[in-house]
């Protein structure tokens, strides 16, 4: 077995820069070999993904796991067929073997390649990009992380929770993109997500209530963990879980709802983010992740929502989990600055390499991601956000416009059909709104709806003072499943006549 490139200097006595230079050498070697063998195009992602997962449960630190995966993936286009080989190795022997294996795969699928793969030219770029980060989370001593999470759990229990689990997830991707056209792009991005869930028990009544944290994952460093207010939120959450235990059950039926961005981000993700992915609309995900009710002929025609609704894609929001300089096809981030929905009208799909020409467009808008260097890059979401109202509108203004409704906070249980039409979302906290004012907490609520009627029922939109960027580390798609991080920003928003479900009784 040949020695492999190890990116961190402590692993092999070489400097970080020397290790990085070796990545370029491996890429040059593989891409040249692929072209010599007849590939019309080839690209490669090489590098390391570091992760950390720490978990505290009550007074016990259960898990502290540092993870590192080195690897690469080589994609070749031969006679209109993709071939791909990926390995969690970074050495010359494996990379050269990959060229042969990827080409062999392209030849293997030729009998079922009725429609040749065609890719567009993207700008050739040689550059580097690094996500701005404060304190490197991987440099923080393990004991400090343990103390932080045990402090969160203690704060929850001191405030009345029976149980509390607190976790920290962190990731860093250091990745070189290289293609046969000459692009060489080295990028580094870091993300962190501290979370908790608290439980309050009423054994006498055989009832319990939970409250999960609202703090979102961020493309940021350890300083954002310390400043996110998780300890204070844990104490508040414990009290809210206790209140939830004794809250009155929600009355099911159609109600006006004001949805907090801590909940609305997930609804945006499921109903808009996934429905406007071009690979779904083309049927490429029909066997698993699903298709979409949005079709190419609906571009510029479909009234997706009310005129208040503008949905913006970007790769530039500070702290965004999809914020990056270039996507995993090598398309620049500027391509991913576009409007998916403009004043209610559907304007753009999200696209990766080789898709735009299928709907008569010139090139990708920068929406590719591979969840590890050794995964095949596919279309994934950039940051996708609901633009806030340009006119002044506070949360109180939105609530003030509701006679009898609910205010929904935090994401709960979720489900949506494979074409992204019929959905059901829970939440962490539900409050009554009576005569324009916030009322009592209620329990056992969820809202159910259909995507287009729901977004066309949007009649109140908060301004930037109500805006909040949330998101997830774990959006799943494709076969084999790939997991992508993504952020969604939103202001608070008001929707009329939404169907409310009582989950304890299963009633609508």
């Amino acid at each position, binding site marked *: 077995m040949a020695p492999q490139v*190890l990116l961190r200097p*402590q*692993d*092999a006595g070489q400097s970080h820069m020397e290790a990085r230079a070796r990545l370029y050498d491996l890429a040059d070697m593989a891409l040249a070999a692929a072209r010599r063998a007849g590939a019309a195009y080839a690209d490669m992602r090489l590098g390391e993904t570091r992760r950390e997962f720490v978990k505290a449960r009550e007074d*016990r*630190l*259960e*898990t502290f*796991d540092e*993870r*590192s*995966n*080195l*690897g690469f993936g080589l994609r070749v286009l031969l006679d209109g067929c*993709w071939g*791909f*080989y*990926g*390995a*969690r*190795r970074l050495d010359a022997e494996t990379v050269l073997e990959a060229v042969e294996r990827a080409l*062999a795969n392209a030849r*293997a*699928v030729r009998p*079922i*390649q009725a429609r040749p793969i065609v890719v567009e030219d993207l700008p050739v770029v040689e550059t580097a990009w690094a996500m701005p980060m404060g304190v490197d989370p991987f440099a923080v001593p*393990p*004991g400090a992380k*343990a*103390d932080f999470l045990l402090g969160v759990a203690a704060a929850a229990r001191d405030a009345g929770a029976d*149980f509390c689990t607190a976790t920290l997830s962190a990731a860093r991707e250091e990745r070189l993109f290289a293609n046969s056209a000459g692009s060489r792009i080295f990028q580094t991005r870091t993300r962190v997500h501290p979370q908790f869930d608290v*439980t309050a*028990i009423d*054994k*006498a009544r*055989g009832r*319990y209530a*939970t409250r999960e944290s609202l703090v979102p994952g961020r493309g940021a460093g350890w300083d954002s963990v310390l400043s996110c207010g998780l300890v204070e939120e844990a104490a508040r959450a414990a009290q809210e879980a206790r209140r939830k235990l004794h809250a009155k059950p929600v009355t099911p039926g159609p109600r006006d709802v004001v949805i907090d961005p801590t909940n609305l981000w997930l609804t945006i993700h499921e109903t808009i983010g996934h429905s406007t992915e071009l690979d779904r609309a083309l*049927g*490429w995900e*029909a*066997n698993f992740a699903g298709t979409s009710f949005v079709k190419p002929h609906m571009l510029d025609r479909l009234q997706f929502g009310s005129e208040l609704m503008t949905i913006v894609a970007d790769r530039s929001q500070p702290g965004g989990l999809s914020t990056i300089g270039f996507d995993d096809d090598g398309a620049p981030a500027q391509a991913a600055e576009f409007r998916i929905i403009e004043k209610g009208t559907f304007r753009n799909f999200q696209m990766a390499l080789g898709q735009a020409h299928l709907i008569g467009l010139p090139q990708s808008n920068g929406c590719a991601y591979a969840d590890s260097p*050794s995964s095949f890059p596919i279309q994934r979401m950039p940051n996708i956000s609901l633009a806030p109202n340009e006119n002044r509108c506070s949360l109180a203004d939105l609530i003030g416009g509701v006679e009898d409704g609910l205010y929904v906070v935090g994401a709960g*249980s*979720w*489900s949506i*059909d*494979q*074409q*992204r*039409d*019929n959905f*059901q979302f*829970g939440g962490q906290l539900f409050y009554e709104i009576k005569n324009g004012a916030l009322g009592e907490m209620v329990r*056992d609520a969820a809202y*159910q709806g259909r995507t287009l009627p729901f977004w066309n029922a949007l009649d109140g939109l908060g301004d930037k003072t109500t805006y909040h960027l949330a998101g997830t580390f774990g959006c799943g798609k*494709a076969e084999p*499943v790939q997991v992508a991080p993504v952020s969604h920003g939103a202001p608070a928003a008001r929707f009329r006549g939404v169907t409310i*479900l009582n989950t304890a009784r*299963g009633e609508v």
Partner: protein
Amino acid sequence: MFLSADEVKAVTDRLLARCAADACEIHISGGEEQSLRFARASATTNMTTAEVTLRISAHVGGRVGTVTTSALEPAALAAALARAEEIARMLPVDPEYVAPLGPQDYALSNRYDESTGRLALEALAQAAATIIAEGGRRGVDTFGCASSGRRFEALATSNGLFAYDRRSEIELSTTARNRADDWSGWAGGSEHRADRLDVGELARRACDKAAYQQAPVDLEPGRYTVIFEPAAASELARWVLNSLDSRAAEEGRSFFSKKDGGVKQGERLFSESFTLRSGPDDPLSPEGAIGWEGVPHRPRVWIEKGVVQTFYRSRAYAQRTGAEAVPHPRSFTMAGGGLSVDEMVAGVKRGVLVTRLWYTNMVDPRSLLLTGLTRDGNFLIEDGRIVAPARNLRFNEPLGEMFSRILALGAPQRCWRPLGAGGVAAAPPMMVEGFTFSSKSSGV
């Protein structure tokens, strides 16, 4: 990267010899996998991957630090081990510390077939070609995924444990959609041996479901007699199995918690025909040898004739409560009965036949209220026969009640699972009464 038991042992022996901690545990897994996808009768993506992952846990003074790496070089592994020890020393003492296991008695695993593990991508492309050809004959578009590979898993500890297990796998699933794009059908299967997967039969089944000329009908939400095909039944049963967490039940946050603090073990909670088993000896869905935390998987009855028999339990919680550590089951079989789907349909006045489910999620763990949708092959049954395709529906159903209303079961069948799922399942077709559909979905 697929490693033999000898190759793994060479790595673990070398690392354990370097261990300066009180104790050490090394988990190694890896393998080779290939897959291809196709849509509208044309290839879209494919990949071959090779990977290995080492999880090194160092135990120092009742604290455990873990480092996971994909590197195999001795210098990199030595650095990972040293880092795990360093982490452990910086952590607070674990009040529920559990030492690594010593030697265990593992069951023989019979999930490996060399020829299946070494299938080339050409074989998967040939399977896809068979499906595409069937779709062409039937006038429907076909979409799908085929994957195969072989994986190993091993565990070694400084207390003398060494265990190694391996498996080969192949899975194939396909969705067929009519040319009007308003109806679909699905079929899928997964096996440890490729010769047990009948590609032609899967293709026919998916195309049969999709090739309806008749426009789908809308059904009103409400309570229906429903026949779930095995893929759907296994998904519902897995939610119940996953809820059998001893700690959650004893802490009062589970369907299986009693009001006074006890657990509902030994009580009849479900229909007498509802039985869930698992084990390495299971002929349809064999469990692996090595369970979570290294605890051996044994033949276990989780629910027998509607009565809960067994809960799963971590080693730390078992130590605290003085109970047996029981690993969470990754594979299982739901026991069946004697009726075929056709015989069930013949007995239904008005109901729905469901092929598979989508996006199921727990809404309320207290009642096991599950939501989700039907997908790729919903059919209206009237007067004992299938009369029309029926558009998809969302359900909200308490599983505790649903598994108490089983009317009939068929023979269990091995069900489709993706390669990366880490477990398989077998379930019978199942007919239940009074299943609650709560809203319509246009999703096809």
